[in-house]
């Protein structure tokens, strides 16, 4: 990792997301959105890493990201997703879900659509509702799915004022994250270590499948699906463990990888190079996991500046599926083949790295130390 740029922004960053590049275009990532948390006044901001003139000749501003525009956000930004090129969906700790519009002409953000009180608690005795934080959001145009501390799942459509579908009491504990599995199916993770698959075609309020870690009930905080192999799912837990699941079979993870020392807040497969995976954690680290088997020489299993860490890679799946012709490197159970090279991307330990996003050769992450880190040469 040669060049990683840090910028202090005077707000704790809870989420960072690249704006998607139009399909089929050769553009690289150049705009990203951030959300802040725990501030008196939180904001959703858009940043550009594009070159501003030719300042890089004297080493000045090259790589530094500049604020394009920002807008107030009521409550902590709990999650953030680009709905499309111009629209951003933000989940709030106040239980509301907001769709922001970006106007590139005059570089402003405005509120496009808002679903207030999408998530709420009902008190036993009184009819009044208390808002519950919305913890996760995922979009697949035109649908938006949100989950919250109230254990509720909402399905919105960008052009509908009301929720299209709501599953009350979908979970008895807090839902931490959500992602799409196949189009009508979503996948949620909760605070008692369960992974649930929901099918919106089914009418009931029951998940179609429950997978869980055995016994330990370690909360899961994040989930991501393999971009090409839709049955491969990665989750990150409170103990910093990375779990790889094959949702087609079994109710237990295929492999458990000991990773960070504290909560893993986010996990992302590289969208176009899914042998690479990225995780970040409360312990202030950001890791790049390389499971590509074609790398010629791998001298060491673990590279990190001056820090020795026990790295356990053990697989708990049976050997039955090894013979499959196309097998993801993440499901491989052969210890020799299943070598994973891990690199720590941040130069120093800092406060919690809350969020990261990868797109092409670019990575962005945000921390509680109020810094945004950007690199444009991931695979150099």
């Amino acid at each position, binding site marked *: 990792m040669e060049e990683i740029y840090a910028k*202090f*922004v*005077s*707000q*704790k960053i809870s989420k960072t997301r690249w704006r998607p590049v139009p399909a089929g275009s050769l553009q690289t990532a150049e705009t990203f959105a951030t959300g802040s*948390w*725990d*501030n*008196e006044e939180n904001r959703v901001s858009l940043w550009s890493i594009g070159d501003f003139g030719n300042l890089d000749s004297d080493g000045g501003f090259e790589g530094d990201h500049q604020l394009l525009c920002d807008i107030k956000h009521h409550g*902590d930004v*709990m999650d953030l997703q680009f709905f499309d090129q111009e629209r951003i969906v933000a989940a709030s*700790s106040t239980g509301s879900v907001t769709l922001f519009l970006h106007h590139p002409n005059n570089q402003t953000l405005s509120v496009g659509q808002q679903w207030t009180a999408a998530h709420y*608690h*009902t*008190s*036993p005795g009184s009819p009044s509702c*208390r808002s*519950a*934080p919305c*913890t996760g959001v995922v979009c697949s145009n035109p649908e938006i799915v949100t989950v919250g*501390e*109230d*254990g509720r799942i909402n399905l919105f459509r960008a052009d509908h004022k009301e929720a299209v579908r709501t599953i009350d*009491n979908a*979970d*008895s*504990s*807090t839902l931490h994250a959500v992602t799409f599995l196949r189009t009508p199916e979503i996948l949620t993770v909760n*605070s*008692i270590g*369960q992974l*649930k698959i929901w099918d919106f075609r089914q009418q009931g309020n029951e998940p179609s499948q*429950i997978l*869980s870690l055995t*016994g*330990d*009930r370690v909360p899961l905080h994040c989930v991501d699906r393999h971009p090409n192999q839709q049955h491969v799912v990665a989750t990150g837990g*409170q103990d910093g463990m990375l779990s790889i699941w094959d949702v087609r079979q079994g109710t237990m993870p295929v492999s458990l990888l000991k990773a960070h020392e*504290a*909560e893993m807040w986010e996990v992302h497969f590289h969208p176009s190079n899914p042998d690479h995976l990225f995780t970040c954690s*409360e312990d202030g680290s950001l890791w790049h996991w390389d499971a590509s088997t074609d790398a010629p020489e791998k001298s060491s299993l673990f590279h990190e500046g001056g820090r020795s860490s026990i790295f356990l890679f053990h697989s708990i799946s049976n050997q039955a599926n090894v013979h499959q012709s196309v097998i993801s490197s993440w499901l491989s159970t052969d210890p020799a083949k299943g070598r994973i090279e891990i690199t720590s991307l941040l130069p*120093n*330990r*800092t*406060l*919690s790295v809350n969020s990261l996003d990868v797109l092409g050769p670019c990575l962005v992450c945000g921390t*509680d*130390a*109020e*810094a945004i880190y950007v690199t444009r040469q991931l695979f150099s």
Partner: protein
Amino acid sequence: MRGCSRQRLIWQKGYCEDRLPLAQFSLTRCRGQDGGTRVECRRVVAMAERRGPCGIGGFGPAGSTGGARAGSSLATGAELEARARSFGGPANSRWLRLGAMEELDGEPTVTLIPGVNSSKKQMCFDWGPGEMLVCETSFNKKEKSETVPGCPFIYIIRKDVDVYSQILRKLFNESHGIFVGLQRIEEELTGKSRKAQLVRVSKNYRSVIRACMEEMHQVAIAAKDPACSCQFSSQVSILSAMELIWNLCEILFIEVAPAGPLLLHLLDWVRLHVCEVDNLLADVLGSENPRKHESFWKLPGTTQTLTELELKWQHWHEECERHLQDGTFASSPHLESLCKIMLGDEAALLEQKELLNNWYHFLVTRLLYSHPTVKPIDLHFYAQSSLDLFLGGESSPEPLDNILMAAFEFDIHQVIKECSIALSNWWFVAHLTDLLDHCKLLQSHNLYFGSNMREFLLLEYASGLFAHHSLWQLGVDYFDYCPELGRVSLELHIERIPLSTEQKALKVLRICEQRQMTEQVRSICKILAMKAVRNNRLGSALSWSIRAKDAAFATLVSDRFLRDYCERGCFSDLDLIDNLGPAMMLSDRLTFLGKYREFHRLYGEKRFVDAASLLLSLMTSQIAPRSFWMTLLTDALPLLEQKQVIFSAEQTYELMRCLEDLTSGRPVHGEPDAQRLQDDDIETTKVEMLRLALARNLARAIIKEGSLEGS
């Protein structure tokens, strides 16, 4: 607007004898102009903020400040004239006092509380976390009823106003990383490498200050509002002064430059901080004797010893003097004065006073031409005389002058003390003192309260961070590196962090768990569990009490589950109860809940024999609460009525004994009313039915068992 007077709150500082800092307050009243308007408030705020670390930070309707979970309650009825005292931990102290206890180091900062209605003579105050709340009360001696609505404002007096600056936040965040890095510097590192590392750390700190200063400068230029711009500009000058002081301390205390290089460092120092110096020096040096001053500039050459240099310089000096005496430059007064300057003639230098920006510029210039090999030990003498000469008795030295003078005198404690008084934040003194402490310069000095000075200042700074709604996370690491009182302070502060979302709670929990703060971990989990119960989220509540290993609360939540079951006839939150695992052992009631649910599952799967023995064991092992036995026995009914015999004769006897235990132990109610009679009626019917079913089952079991034995 009636003419009402303003209240003046005078902050007096002192310490009590039990080694804990004591903040003393006296609330006095003084007549002033009308003070009831908001505009007035703002003006006063601005003034207060400029004056020192204490200013009024915010206003709001009463109650809006109640963000803290364990916010202090405000004492009521404290009378205005009353001399109030407040004892407390280190967070309550305002000034660090290094001198004798009796004398005050500086004028106490006066903070005006605007808009207080003096005719009521009521005001109270209390410490919030790291800040003070002052409010007017509706307390009225004559009328006991609280009919008079109180003043809608609570004033928050913040200790460290700079913490709230958007730009300075970057300074705090960036320097936090440097601070943590510094604490991890290997203690074994000694000598040169250690010194080099410390100098590097010092330079890092300074570069952060400079970056911050530059940004502040940009903002000041860009600001459209002149008042705003002025405020930023004053911040720039404060930052610039901070960097100036830090740099001098770095040269004198950390780098510890010996005679010779010392002057070069000082030259750099002046050049860095006085923009015009560069041009000036070029003018002065580049003009007259290039050959000679070229040789002078070779001064730092390593081959030359100090004595050699001194000899050469002496030679050059004499040559210049000769030129002057010979009247070589007599034709040009300018050249003559230039020559005088190069000889270090003070009078000639002072003639050019307007070119010299300040006395330390004068000092360094003077040293350059008259004492280039000045020893560190002699610095203070030249510094003092330069200051006196430069000011010429016209003006008195300012705080910055005193700080620099203290540094030239190598009086570190005086530097820190003066900085504490003059600067508007704790950041500077805390970090500088910590760095100097790492240079092993402060070890001899211990305070008569708390721990040592380094720790005291770090605690002050960290408390300020904790008072901020967002920067509290930075404060944790500072507390960690305060060996004596850090832990206690952290425990006190962390409990006051509002837990708005579970995510934030998890972060606070992680901090506590990493430091084995079990008491705090339990309290946080309990708060979250209570919150979940209030929100009717029993599953979450149970998860939190399991995490806290809080058996009592787990019992309470389990009871709620069982009650809900009795009311609705079905379980909620099965995903949790079915997956309790070993956590089930936390409390008996939870075990019962888990097992009872297991019974239902077995029954649902038509595994009647297993279900029956589990049901019976729940009662015989006393896991099931007595109050629930009737429900369990009722659950046994359908099993007793099955076609095949499920309960063995022995099991049936056991069931019968359970039923008799339950019915015989029943208390006799006095004065039965209609409702109770009806209830009792239902109960009696239930018992009769059970007895009948048990008897029939017993008969069938005996026959079955008998016939099996017989065959």
